[in-house]
């Protein structure tokens, strides 16, 4: 039996080996070809436009050194609405933009020229940017799990002090993976600075010496406390200077209000807030059509019938792109397993009907047996 794990609607990993995992964001700054999987559904073009407009105005100021600026990009939205993919897309565009500043002045389209001259295979690791270090805090789990937890403790309980301390160390550790940076960092022969501010300043000074900017990608950290979440935003903003750009992802839907309330108007010029939201019914067809044109998807594949494109999911299913992906992936998988050859609308409709939220599926646990009472 051939490999039944369909790679449709997944995210190609490095080297594109099947099966493609799900729930992974597209990271075009990291893997080539991810940008080709981008679908401009609903809100994303607006968000990207906002980002491009903001960055277009400030990007030239983002550079290392005393007179350099930084920036804070906050991407918020409910889970499954494409926050991470948007964030990585923005990182990719920023890297392209900053690298473009490094290109010779006579080259009018650095991005396109880079893309056209791309020697890499599809889904291969992208070559590091020339002018930017991108540091992704935590791994691919796309969450700050364990980032601020003490060893051996419950993994989901973040502590603020421990988190910011570890972020600073992780940045240095990941930057030191670059030999030149490591040489510059260790070559200074200075003892490790216990003071957080001075340690950070040493880092930016080293970046300045190398002429590199720094992009830090921070996943959502479940603070479970609005005050601490605000403190953390303040921490990221304070560190976004001298060519350091923080991309912070958060599931908090109130973050826009926090930014307006707890940051001054002047401070907000150094902050870009992007939001994701639910899909629209027409995004379903847009998404499927795009995927039908995607090349280099590993077998097995399945034909998608046109009636599937005409299907209109109910609004509850459009809250999360992950749910659409789940649906398409699972029905594709079943079609492959059943050797049905193509995906039909009925498959999709049945799946949605089966997964429609029903109150009875959310009943409380049966009452615990108590002395003198019967089990409910």
């Amino acid at each position, binding site marked *: 039996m051939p490999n039944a794990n369909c790679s449709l609607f997944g995210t190609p990993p490095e080297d594109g080996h099947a099966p493609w995992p799900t729930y992974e964001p597209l990271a075009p700054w990291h893997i080539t070809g991810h940008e080709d999987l981008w679908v401009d559904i609903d809100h994303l073009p607006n968000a990207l436009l906002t980002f491009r407009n903001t960055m277009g105005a400030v990007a030239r100021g983002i550079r290392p050194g005393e007179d350099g600026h930084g920036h804070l990009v906050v991407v918020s939205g*409910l889970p499954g609405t494409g926050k991470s993919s948007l964030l990585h897309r923005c990182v990719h565009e920023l890297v392209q933009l900053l690298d473009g500043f490094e290109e010779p002045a006579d080259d009018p389209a650095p991005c396109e020229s880079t893309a056209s001259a791309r020697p890499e295979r599809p889904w291969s690791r992208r070559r590091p940017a020339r002018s930017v270090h991108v540091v992704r805090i935590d791994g691919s789990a796309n969450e700050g799990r364990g980032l601020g937890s003490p060893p051996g403790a419950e993994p989901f309980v973040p502590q603020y002090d*421990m988190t910011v301390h570890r972020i600073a160390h992780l940045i240095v550790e990941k930057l030191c993976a670059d030999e030149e940076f490591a040489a510059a960092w260790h070559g200074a022969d200075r003892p490790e600075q216990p003071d957080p501010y001075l340690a950070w300043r040493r880092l930016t000074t080293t970046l300045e010496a190398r002429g590199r900017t720094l992009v830090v990608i921070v996943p959502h950290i*479940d603070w479970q406390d609005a005050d601490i979440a605000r403190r953390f935003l303040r921490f990221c903003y304070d560190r976004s200077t001298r060519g350091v750009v923080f991309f912070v992802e958060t599931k908090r839907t109130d973050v826009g209000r926090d930014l307006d309330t707890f940051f001054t108007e002047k401070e907000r010029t150094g902050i870009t807030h992007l939001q994701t939201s639910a899909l629209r019914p027409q995004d379903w067809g847009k998404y499927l059509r795009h995927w039908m044109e995607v090349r280099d998807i590993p077998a097995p594949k399945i034909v998608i019938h046109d009636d599937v494109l005409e299907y209109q999911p109910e609004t509850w299913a459009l809250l999360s792109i992950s749910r659409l992906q789940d649906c398409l992936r699972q029905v594709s998988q079943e079609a492959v397993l059943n050797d049905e050859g193509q995906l039909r609308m009925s498959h999709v409709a049945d799946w949605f009907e089966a997964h429609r939220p029903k109150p009875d599926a959310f009943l*409380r646990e049966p009452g615990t047996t108590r002395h003198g009472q019967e089990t409910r």
Partner: protein
Amino acid sequence: MTSPPARPPEGRPLKNPFRESTVAQLEAFDDSTQIGTGPTGAGVHIPGRTSAWLTEHIEAYLGHRGEPETRGRAIALVGEFGLGKSHLAREATRLLRKHVPPLPLWVISQPSIDMRTVYQERLTSPRDDFDAFVDFKQAITDFYADVTAEILGEDDTDRFGADRGAFLEGLRARRLDPQKIVQAFNLDEERIQHRLRRHLRGVTAHRTFAVALAQLFNRPFENDVWNWLSGGEPVAHLRERGIREPIRSIQQVFDALAVFSLVYGKSGRPYALVLDELDKTTEWPEQDRAVFINAFEMLVERYVNQGGLLLFCARPELWGRLPLSLHERVLPLWLDSWGPAETDRLIAGHVHRADRTPGAGPDGAPFAEPALREIVLQSDGVPRQILQICEGAWDQAVRREAGAREDRRPRPGPPREIGLTDVHAALRSAHGKRDMAEVAHRLQHVLAPRQWWHHMPPVSVRSLSAPREGGEPRWVQVTRRTWIALLPVPSVLAQDDVHGIQRFVDRVRSVLAPENVEVLVIVNGHACREMRNRVAEHCGTVPLVFDDPRFESMLIDGVRSLIERLRANGRNAVLGEVRDQLETIATQQAMLADRIDAVDHAVNHPRLPPPTPGPPTSDPRVPPPVREPFRQAQAALDRLLEDGVGPRPRLGPAVPGAEGAHAALPRRATTEQTTLQAMGALLYARRLVEAFREAITHWWEAGGDADGRNAQGLFTVCRSFEISVEVLPRVDTGESGPGARAGGGVEEVLTGLAEQVWFALRDGLSAEPGGAAR
């Protein structure tokens, strides 16, 4: 060969059944496991009036069928030491623990300044009680469900499709699990947490607890929050979120109890807190006590408003000092002294406790009837005292009976009979352990620094001896002549002891005069309320008991009070003498003033002698033959009118009273109705005489000469006068002076006048058979 084990006769216990049973102690945890063969600590419960009330209230609370919020109540068991407050509280906890299904119950047997230890170590945490834990989580889940429903109600994303209404209704009806919904629909948990904290803060009025309760829904936080709620140190991530210190202060512990009250109250199930020995707080520093009372007041309010049952024990002194709001919210159940019936049942219950058969042995044997009555008297109806006396009397009887045996060994089993002497011996033995010398030393210790110590008694009473077995009396000299005698005596158990004290007091009073001496009796032993009253009745002072922990302060207060009383006695004596003198002077002055008044009146109104009869010049028209009778009658009536009837009225200042210290008062002259009537009659009589004279004169002149006058006309006039006089009221002039005719009154004067006129004038008429007019 060994003798068979002795069996108690009639199922009575071998050992003293009253040992280890006098103090009830509440247990924080429900533990009915019997370890070993020791006492069960169950005690003997004698249902009384207060017990029945308490049971009634608890059953009403548990059986409440209305709104859960309206079931709340706070009950105070108020009574003096040893009346059984703790015992009743323990019975209440047993009753509550028997309830099915079990209810959350917290028991604090004794508040402490170190409330953290009480809270952490001695108080049941929800985690100690599985059912309470489930209730707690259910209640918190209810809060969470409400908040989730509220947020979903504001949500416009249509994420539930057509079933939106069913989801909201299911959440509010506690049917659906809010956490499952939040996770399945990717709701913003932090927003829900934020709203939940705000909501809980509104209801708990406490930010820290609101944060903690909200975090109970974060599984990673749950264990740490429970640790903190159980009194543990908050972990780092809780500290970052505002939970910075453990629950340790008095206020925090009561806040925690209030939050538990809130949570369980919201669950609609009964829950209770029993707090014994609230009086311990009176020994705390003022600040801690104030904090405790404030926090306790808040807790009572929460329990009453949120459907809880709060039961606490307090002595009357503390109960009276509690804030007014507590008095308004708390129902006090007062514990009274026990009567003979309850005492008998208590004793019988202990004696027959070993039988373990309900209702066995209602009699108090081996206690004899006089002994039982004596126990009632000597214990003042305090159950703890009853049990202590019984314990001692039992041992005394066993020793007495052993002493009577030849081998001097105690007979196995209970004593045959416990009599009055055993009770008295037990009391003397239990309370007479301190030597009289110690009393003397203590008195010196208290009195000497205050300069109240007088080594020697007054000279005149040096020969007096103290009552039998009493200590040497001590004396405090208040003034040169006044003294306080402090008389130490052993236990006052019977009337003989009281008589001994009375004899001493009588002799001291007879020597030093009652107003110059006060005797304060100090009982180095036991004195029941009745005996104290008897002594107080005779001495005028309440005896002090040397064993009383407040003896020193009571002694100081007592001596101060008696000093004041003696000084007041002295002042009263001087004032009395001065008052007597003043009264004498005032009386003399009143008498003198009276005499002066009389003289003054006599001068201003001299009583002149009646004018001598003069020539009849008054009215020349009156016929000459009758002028004299008319004049005499007129003069007699004038004199009577001048003298008046009854005593002569006197005006002017009144005579001072016996006190003589008041200013002279105006005097009101009064007379009687009969007197006024008599004087009116006199006046009328005179007018009648004048009318008679006018009529006679007219008759005389109308006749012209003797021939013209007829006897009939004269008769008519005279008879008219006569019958008019007859209807005049009788005038009793009381005259006995020289002006009064012997045996004569006004009637005689007037009647005589008619006759005189008739006879005098008739003779001058022509002969006529008119004489037949009569």
